[in-house]
């Protein structure tokens, strides 16, 4: 167990896409109890710095593993396939049309009678989309090799798309639904 371990090893979890959230949280607390700088407030400077480094790694690991998108990108990276933001390969046109329609709905949301309900509906759709993509990726990552890596990367790019729209929905919720 050390800083150079990958995040799954650090959390003693099997290296697979779907993971047990409760086990993750429990391990997270155990690890923080051992590494948090508060536990070293009385220790030497050197141990304090070490604690910050370890606790930061544990926190980053938890952040990455908890997010379905960050976890997917991380797993691809472990297998040697990076997501290049510059490289925008052709995306599934059906998916793009669907997303464009959602965006249009989002732009008009402030003008409809019940923006709250409209946002709720969009949010639900996005949640479902993301779930489908997660299921798809879980299968792809199990059989990942050079030949199908592009497909897995494509799934992750779609996830990025959906997550971006989700954050826009949250932003609009905050703008529209408040006093």
């Amino acid at each position, binding site marked *: *167990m050390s800083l150079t371990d990958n995040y799954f090893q650090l959390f003693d979890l099997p290296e697979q896409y779907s993971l047990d959230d409760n086990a993750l949280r429990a391990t997270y607390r155990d*690890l923080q109890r051992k590494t948090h700088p508060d536990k070293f407030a*009385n220790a030497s400077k*050197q141990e304090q710095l070490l*604690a910050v480094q*370890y606790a*930061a790694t544990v926190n980053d690991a938890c*952040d990455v593993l908890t997010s379905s998108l960050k976890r997917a990108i991380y797993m691809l990276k472990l297998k040697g396939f990076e997501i290049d933001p510059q490289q925008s390969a052709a995306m599934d046109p059906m998916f793009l049309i669907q997303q464009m329609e959602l965006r249009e709905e989002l732009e008009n949301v402030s003008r409809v009678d019940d923006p709250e309900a409209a946002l709720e509906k969009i949010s639900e759709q996005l949640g479902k989309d993301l779930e489908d993509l997660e299921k798809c990726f879980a299968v792809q990552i199990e059989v990942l090799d050079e030949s199908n890596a592009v497909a897995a990367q494509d799934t992750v790019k779609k996830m990025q798309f959906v997550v971006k729209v989700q954050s826009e929905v949250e932003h609009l919720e905050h703008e529209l*639904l408040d*006093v």
Partner: protein
Amino acid sequence: MALLQLSEPGMSPKPHQRKNAVGIDLGTTHSLVASVRSGSAEVIADIQGRKLLPSVVHYASALNGAEQITVGDDARVKAVSDPLNTIISIKRLMGRGVDDVSTFDHHMPYRFAEQNGTGMPIIETAAGNVSPVQVSAEILKVLAQRGREALGDELDGAVITVPAYFDEAQRQATKDAATLAGLNVLRLLNEPTAAAIAYGLDQQDEGIIAVYDLGGGTFDISILRLQAGVFEVLSTGGDTALGGDDFDRAIAEWILKESQYDKDVTPGLSRELMESARSIKEQLSGLDSVNAFIQHGDFSWQGELTRAWFDGLIETLVARTLKVCKGAVRDAKVKMKDLVNVVMVGGSTRVPYVRQRVSELFGRDPMIDIDPDLVVATGAALQADVLVGNKSSDDMLLLDVNPLSLGIETMGGLAEKIIERNVTIPIAKAQEFTTYKDGQTAMAVHVVQGERELVADCRSLARFELRGIPPMVAGAARILVTFQVDADGLLSVTAKEMTTGIETNVTVKPSYGLEEEQITQMLKDSIAHAKDDVHARQLREKQVDAEGLLASIENALAEDGEMLLNAAERNDIEVALQRLREVVVGDDQHAIAREIDRAGQASNEFATRRMDASIKQALSGKSIDAITVDKEG
């Protein structure tokens, strides 16, 4: 010289010694100090029994060569008669630049001095120019003295609270003020988290709680999950320029309008109106209406303010806090109905209208069991007691978050976030960047904080340059920028060119903050002033450091030495420790510093192995240390 003492293996070399630690709530309108004594945390009162120290500092012209500085109630009585030399609400200026101050919606009466380069708002007083950090340090010195008198000895450490929504510059300024006041800062603790500790440990609460903290000048909301002694902040939000001061101002402005006074408002009148407004506000917490008569120079007003009218005056201010609350609940990814408790903190939560609107929003009566003025200092004292080593840290774990996103400027003036808000600290995140032009050999790194897309809308924290990048075509260089936020919420940034390994480290010091050397110099000056011996003090500090290091490594060796080190490795450490023991009794502080470094280096690998082993143990749930003998058993 006395013979070296050897302790039995596994035994602490020193008998358990209780250390003196305090928690300090450095507030906008008043400040407090608390400590854990005979098991419970208590706010320490002054000799006249006053627990709250008004955060007011008065500077008088030098008399017999000595500056005349008064703090607290004695300073506050001068607020109206000598407004330019009586500094109130200094917290609003902490970590702010001159430019920020000019954008404040409320005019401050002080004369700001020109200060080349620093950009810090320097206040001209009869006793000379002072920075917000120095003013805050004066308040901290008085509180520290209170702590020393109550505990009967020097303080070993202090936990200082800050608003959860304080940015990097405001946190750094607070820490600088504490250093300047001669305090050993164990941790900067977020105010709502401190309140949660005070409540949580009291009530043994489990579940998700909200802490609504409306103080004199700042507003915070934190959503926390409490479980088995773990205080996990899920989200935080706030406004560092919204508080009870603004309620006072709303009343003062209303009075001014009612009075139809059409001349310029002098600083003295402004203070008089604010003081009267505060008194009216406080009375309205218990009464339905208040009659007031105000006379200052040629200004005179008599009238009545009803509570209903006051509620109307502060409605938009309170609404602003409610909007932030909703955002924080959403960021925490919980629903209002998931909350098991809403805790009220800060003097401004005494205002009935605030309580009413907060109850309506959360759909439950907020908790007000602990005095909202005392709760933050109480929680800070409990945390200080743990951090200083008086109480086992096994029972309590605080997991706090980064309140505002941190990032760097990229092409086109856009802010690229590297560490997002509401991520648990400490945290480190790295991101790769590349060059924009062919043959580019240097890269300017501009560190910013905030949620907006454009750099211009974010807070600029620091700028530095990474030089020596080998000339390559645009986009070929790989520069890894790493951000690390420590448990105090303070940032350090590293930039590294990956092909050459050229590295630049910066601990972020806001452009209008104090340089490390400036603080050291100020400290030296203040000590010299007190006719103390700088060297004696520095030597004492080094000796304390050395003794701490010796004790910690000796304990570690006793616990895990057998298990994790071979004979040669152990011998290297023992030799380094022996060298340190030899110099620590002497008076050469440089030799002590050198041997501290060497002992640290010698034991670095051991410390890493111990950490790895302890993680392994956490995961397996089994003891890795077969040789640890329970001496008590």
